[in-house]
């Protein structure tokens, strides 16, 4: 099973609990251990920053020494002034994608600003990474008030016809199915799902999704440093034999 790129990694502190060593050098060591060649890396705290531009610049600077392994994924807020400039900055920094947090910014499903951002991303060949959640709902800090990303938001964005490539991370089986089967076949092709939160045996959600949706709609993601990087590798290792040769999509093939 190929698993060469982690599309769902972060660096930096998390506002709601202490996380061991959320640093680029630790990430690279973990990647070496796990056989991951490259990671798309966001700033963990940026979702909660009103203006993400400083966290973006910090991300660019901190990842520069690791440019061959770690690709910066900055945040772009389409409800913030000069978001086009921030998007162009991402392009100039060779970011393969940007991160967008509609729930944290209270952007409803179908918001025109999200669609405009997605259209601009498609025009410059930049993918969009969405995050369903950072933590399980049952353990969240009382001040962590953003709701999980809604399936409706993802459906509306996929239906908007922006031609953007959209990766949704930290989704579970029910979320994925609710979105996927609510889209036309063409709309489905604009979405990819990371496997970081999908259950393996005995419920075998990942196997079920590979059989029904197809492994090509899935990408490798760990949610490091929030979650153990070993988890998606374990899930792939536990697939039934007949699915063991299924291939995930490698987003580097898009360029």
């Amino acid at each position, binding site marked *: 099973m190929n698993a060469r790129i982690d599309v769902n990694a972060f660096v930096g502190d998390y506002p709601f609990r202490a996380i061991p060593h959320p640093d680029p050098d630790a990430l690279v060591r973990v990647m070496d251990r796990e056989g991951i060649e490259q990671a798309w890396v966001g700033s963990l705290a940026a979702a909660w920053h009103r203006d993400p531009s400083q966290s973006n610049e910090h991300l660019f600077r901190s990842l520069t020494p690791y440019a061959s392994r770690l690709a910066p994924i900055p945040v772009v807020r389409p409800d913030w002034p000069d978001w086009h400039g921030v998007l162009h900055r991402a392009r100039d920094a060779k970011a393969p994608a940007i991160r967008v947090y509609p729930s944290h910014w209270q952007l409803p499903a179908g918001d025109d600003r999200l669609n405009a951002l997605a259209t601009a991303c498609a025009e410059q060949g930049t993918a969009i990474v969405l995050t369903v959640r950072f933590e399980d709902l049952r353990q969240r800090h009382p001040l962590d008030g953003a709701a999980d990303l809604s399936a409706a938001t993802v459906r509306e964005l996929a239906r908007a016809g922006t031609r953007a490539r959209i990766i949704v991370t930290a989704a579970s089986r029910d979320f994925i199915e609710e979105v996927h089967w609510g889209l036309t076949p063409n709309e489905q092709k604009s979405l990819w799902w990371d496997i970081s939160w999908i259950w393996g045996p005995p419920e075998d959600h990942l196997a079920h999704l590979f059989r029904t949706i197809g492994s090509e709609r899935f990408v490798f993601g760990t949610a490091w440093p929030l979650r153990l990087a070993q988890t998606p*590798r374990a899930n792939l290792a536990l697939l039934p034999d007949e699915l063991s040769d299924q291939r995930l999509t490698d987003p580097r093939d898009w360029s």
Partner: protein
Amino acid sequence: MPLAGSDPLIDIHAHFYYEGCARADWRELNAARLRAGAAIGISCHVGSILGSWGRHSPTYFQSPADTVRGNDEMLALQRAHGALIRSYVAVNPNDTRRAIAEIDRCLALGAVGVKLAAARRADDALLDPIAEHAERHGLPVLQHIWQHRRRHWGGQDASDGDELCRLARRHPKVNFILAHIGGGGDYAHTFTVAQNVPNVYLDLSGSGVDRGMLDGAVAAVGPRRLLWGADLTLCTGLAKLWALEPIGLDADAIADIRWRNALRIFPPNTFPTVSQPRDARPQKATVA
């Protein structure tokens, strides 16, 4: 080579299903657990069945009939699979007389521990006779735990670590397994609460795989009070096994978590395919 290596490995928190329960895919679920268990290298699954899993009475508030049926099905799996499967007897503590009778019935049929779910808070006095009975027979008690319950959650009267530790302090000779630190809620609260209650063991199972959780568990109670389990997600269980060495545990500590602690707290001969640790404490019950 099994994915988790060839050393013994005991899953102290497994669940199984049966024809007629709420899961129409019961056969696939059981088969998937055993397939994945073989791939991982699990020596023994210690499992429970909670009634009819909600079909005839609520999962966490099982009727007497459902309780008996669930335990019978679990023991049938034990008989069918030999040393690979062992059974908890699941009881509803609201009817103490029935619960104790059910423990005795299932003990005679080979059960090795008691499973308490969420029909009553763990520190309720109704659980004291059950704990006394567990002590009498040397049985560990696996208690379903919501890590730091801050409000009521529908469908269960879940206990948190505080409540279990209150029960455990009342029964210092009973080994309590605090279920699934990765199963939902704030495990950091649990670590603080359970730290100085020596007869409470933490079960690592659950879909939660937060970085820092294993480290915190080791720091709080030490590897001699941790037990590996999978509950509903064997993938996350395997990930946690793979993570034990990177977080700095040595081979001895890993062996404790994988199997030696289980041998220490379950009755003698519960795991006949796994060697006894040198410091096994004598227990009262033996497996039938």
